[in-house]
């Protein structure tokens, strides 16, 4: 029941807001904030009621159509638990952060935001592929409006790019979902989109690869993985602050979550085949994102490119295929939501005052707005993975795990950490240190009480995860291990198959093989 509440409560609030008169923006704001805070408070119940290692919990099964096997089926396991919490937290924060920035069409804005929340929670909780797809697409619409209506100057180009990229990916996914259902139907004899049922069967290896590619394409665009990332900087730069927070904090996680939840466990053998490609793209993403971030002139696009780099780490962790790497990867998804969300909030705070995000327009801010500068510093340190902050634990586990499976990739990834410090500190220096060179910046007001209240929870979480990540790690690991076990099972099967293949080869050996087969007599002859 609780999940159903979490999914539909934002819609209820949206409906209430729709009834409030449009000329009372304050009421609308308060209603939206109250609604999202209630949502967050209720969602924290999950944390206490969650049973570690027990699989899907709080499940609801309600079939719409028995013949089609499509239904409202939701549940939460270790993988989705913290992503749901992240969503409810960031949504409440984003709503509050929008109080000052959004002055026009307030009603539409908050309705869009609440619908977006429904879509996000639904996507994370759906255990029915059809429902998943519906929620996946449901997120696109409000985001489209958020950027397209409340965005910056170039918002139309950005929204087109965002929509074209995303639609392309999800189209392939839709086809793949239907096709997979068909395969399951052939094996099991029933039509179903129930993920838990799908997991009981293994998709024939021959079909896996292209199905995996179709899923992976949709997810890789969302992540975004290099070279499918170019929609991200544009979308971020044009989106309103809260849109950026949700985009970076939650929507990007849909991609990595999709890999963890669907693409990898459904098509494990294809994942193993595609792994080298994903690995290389992940590492390129880490380095490339960091390098390009270094030369950005706009703070927001710098943060956007840093996301490309950070999500490269997350993908690298998935490629590690061991508990440590997977745990790091999932933890880093949460961390990235917190840290990058906070960074966008901070950029928004200064943008609201100065209406520019260009690094060159700033300088010497530490003197003018010390509190803001210190918040920015803390969040930046978390973003570059300083030990004691959340970013360190995630990155460390990812690299440690990846080092076991792919040492070269891990070494390159570790180099990415050096670069991360480079682009962040350089930006920080140009914005906050030195003298105030731009006279417009001499009298900026420091953070207001509301702005501090928005950021304090995020800062607390940054340190809490950095110092005591155990409560999260121990809850996510059983679910992750199930995914790993699924992939490893395939590896074992394939290995035995290969062994069988080799042994059959020995029975019918090609001429060249015959000489190599270990026959004691031939070996004795060789030394002469």
């Amino acid at each position: 029941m609780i999940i159903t509440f979490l999914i539909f409560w934002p819609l209820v609030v949206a409906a209430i807001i729709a009834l409030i008169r449009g000329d009372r923006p304050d009421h609308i704001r308060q209603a939206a904030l109250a609604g999202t805070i209630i949502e967050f408070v209720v969602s924290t119940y999950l944390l206490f009621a969650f049973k570690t290692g027990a699989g899907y919990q709080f499940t609801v099964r309600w079939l719409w159509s028995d013949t089609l096997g499509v239904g409202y089926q939701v549940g939460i396991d270790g993988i989705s638990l913290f992503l749901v919490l992240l969503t409810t937290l960031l949504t409440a924060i984003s709503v509050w952060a929008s109080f000052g920035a959004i002055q026009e069409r307030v009603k539409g804005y908050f309705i869009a935001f609440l619908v977006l929340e429904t879509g996000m929670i639904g996507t994370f909780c759906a255990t029915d592929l059809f429902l998943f797809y519906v929620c996946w697409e449901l997120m696109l619409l409000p985001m489209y409006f958020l950027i397209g209506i409340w965005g910056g100057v170039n918002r139309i180009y950005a929204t087109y790019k965002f929509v074209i990229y995303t639609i392309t990916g999800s189209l392939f996914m839709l086809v793949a979902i239907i096709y997979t259902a068909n395969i399951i139907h052939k094996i099991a004899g029933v039509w179903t989109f129930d993920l838990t049922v799908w997991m009981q069967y293994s998709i024939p290896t021959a079909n896996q690869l292209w199905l995996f590619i179709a899923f992976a394409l949709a997810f890789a665009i969302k992540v975004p993985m290099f070279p499918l990332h170019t929609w991200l900087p544009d979308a971020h730069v044009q989106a309103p602050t809260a849109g950026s927070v949700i985009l970076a904090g939650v929507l990007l996680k849909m991609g990595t979550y999709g890999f963890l939840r669907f693409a990898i466990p459904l098509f494990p053998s294809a994942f193993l085949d595609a792994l080298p490609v994903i690995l290389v793209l992940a590492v390129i993403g880490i380095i490339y994102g960091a390098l390009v971030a270094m030369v950005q002139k706009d703070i927001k696009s710098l943060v956007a490119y840093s996301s490309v780099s950070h999500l490269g780490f997350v993908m690298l962790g998935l490629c590690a295929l061991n508990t440590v790497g997977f745990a790091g990867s999932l933890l880093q998804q949460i961390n990235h939501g917190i840290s990058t969300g906070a960074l966008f909030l901070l950029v928004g705070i200064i943008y609201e005052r100065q209406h520019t995000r260009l690094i060159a327009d700033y300088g010497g801010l530490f003197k003018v707005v010390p509190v803001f500068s210190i918040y920015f510093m803390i969040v930046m340190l978390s973003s570059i993975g300083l030990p004691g902050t959340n970013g360190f634990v995630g990155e460390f586990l990812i690299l440690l795990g990846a080092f076991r499976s792919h040492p070269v990739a891990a070494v390159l990834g570790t180099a990415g950490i050096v670069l991360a410090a480079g682009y962040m500190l350089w930006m920080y220096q140009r914005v906050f240190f030195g003298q105030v060179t731009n006279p417009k910046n001499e009298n900026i007001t420091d953070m207001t009480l509301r702005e501090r209240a928005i950021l304090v929870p995020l800062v607390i979480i940054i340190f809490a995860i950095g110092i005591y990540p155990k409560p999260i790690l121990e809850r996510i690991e059983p679910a992750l291990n199930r995914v790993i076990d699924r992939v490893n099972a395939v590896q074992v099967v394939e290995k035995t198959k290969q062994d069988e293949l080799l042994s059959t080869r020995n029975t019918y050996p090609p001429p060249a093989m015959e000489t190599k087969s270990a026959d004691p007599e031939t070996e004795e002859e060789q030394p002469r």
Partner: protein
Amino acid sequence: MLNTIWLIPVFPLIGFLINGLGGRRLSRYGSGVVACMMVFFSFIFSLLAVLFLKENSYHIEVLDWVVSGTFSVSFGFILDPLSSVMVLTVSGVAFLIHVYSTGYMAHDEHVSRYFAYLNLFVFFMLILVLADNFLLLYMGWEGVGLCSYLLIGFWFHKDSAANAGKKAFLVNRVGDFGFALGIFLIFWHFGSVQFPDVFAAAPEVLGAGGGLATLICLLLFLGATGKSAQIPLYIWLPDAMEGPTPVSALIHAATMVTAGVYMVARCSALFVFSPTALLVVAIIGAATALFAATMATVQNDIKRVLAYSTISQLGYMFLACGVAAFSAAIFHLMTHAFFKALLFLGAGSVIHAMHEEQDLRKMGGLRKYLPATFLTFAIATLAISGFPGLAGFVSKDEILWSSFSSPLGGLVFWIVGVLTAGLTAFYMFRLLFLAFYGKSRFDDTTAAKIHESPMSMTGSLSILAILSIVGGWIGWPEALGGGNSFGNYLEPVFAQAKEYLPQGGHHAYSTEYLLMGLSVAIGVIGFFWAYRWYISESPAAERIKERFPGLYTLVLNKYYIDEFYQAVIVRPLIGGSRLLWHKFDELAIDGAVNGLGRLVRAIGRGGALAQTGYFRAYAAFFSLGAALVLGWMIYLMR
């Protein structure tokens, strides 16, 4: 008592929180008092803990930290003779420098921020030396790096300071890259990153030979070259002098920069399995010692002379580690903390008195104006130059002797060490003479303002001066009738390493006397050279320039190493990144995407013919599309 050792780092953390969160509500005086008290508590707790320590090492785990899969690490602390020496040195020297800072920073606007950073530094440094595992050590390691960054850039309104802070952090991150990889390797080969586990398993895992030991040790050492400013990553330390002088004394002389030496000594049980790595450590150490000493001879900034001197002295410590004389390295680490902190604080006292003047060419004759500073500074100069009996003499002599007598050492190492000793005496007396002797090279209005520093500063100077004299006596060598009790105290820490080292032949005391005599003689030559050039002939800072103009330019420009790095690494990186952004992201990928977009639009224009505006037509198209999808599904569902 011992189960409270985790409080040792916690006190300064509390100080940081008080000053960091509530600093603006404290008076300037209050900020300083809180910070000093917290560090003093740490010192007292350290002292008590060390006195209570009966067994060889005490180990306590306070809280789980990162636990995932088979990886598990906690906030655990270890107290053994090695960490005892380190906590006492760190908290003791830090306390004196905190007290000094209350005087030095009294007129700064942002005292509370300063003390907050300084306390935070002490917190991380104590974590670093007390950590019982590699990951927690790494946390302290990066944490002190952060504080170094913050404190170098404390006066961030100066671009030079902000640049120096960033440079320090980035160069250190390059080193940390190696350190992190070393930790990964250790975990996957040892199954743990806890010191006791790793060192106990070292003979089994590394004893078989192969390149693993060398790889691990060299990666760890890369980290050490960053933090401890050795070739090739030393370049950040001279620039770090942009920070307030007490910061230079604490972080960039006495404590943080020695973390690399501590780490190598801590990992002695690993390094002994790789003679190659030890050789690299020794060569880098010796080369850095000599190389940095040459650069110290031509600097005109009083703090930069000391910075290069620090790099050079750290080179000595690594030389000692490289010849497996770990306790000699730690001994020199400790005495160096005393006299180098004293030198920096003395320099700070001069700078303070002369109102932020750091140029030696504008000093001279300060002996008369600053008697207390002069006296203590002279003691430190004698100590670092190896004047017989003082702290620097005893510890440096042990290093020189080990570099010759150790089975891993050799005559070349000794010669480089002794040459460095000569240069050290030269540049230190050059500094002393240019600052305190001769005629004053400033005008009368400046002279009228010069005043001796307050008690808080001279008091700290006096205590450090005493330590610079007597600090070496606890390790008085056997050859001179001492018991080398310092070495014996550290013995159990390095006992395991010693088992796997080749045993050297016994050298007669006569050889030791001879070498000792020679090194003292070379020091005296350095002294006389400085005396001739800067006292008896008309003193001028550029005396070397007159004699060797070409060489002088080369050395003064630090052998153009910074320019080299700039041209070979920094500029290509930024230029290449711009190229990637504009040519690849914007031109190639977006070009393709936009091209695709245009194509779609072109098709759309064709399709626009169907845009009749009639609702019925749209409905028809919609139904057609839906029918197609449904039809496909039904086809599949057959």
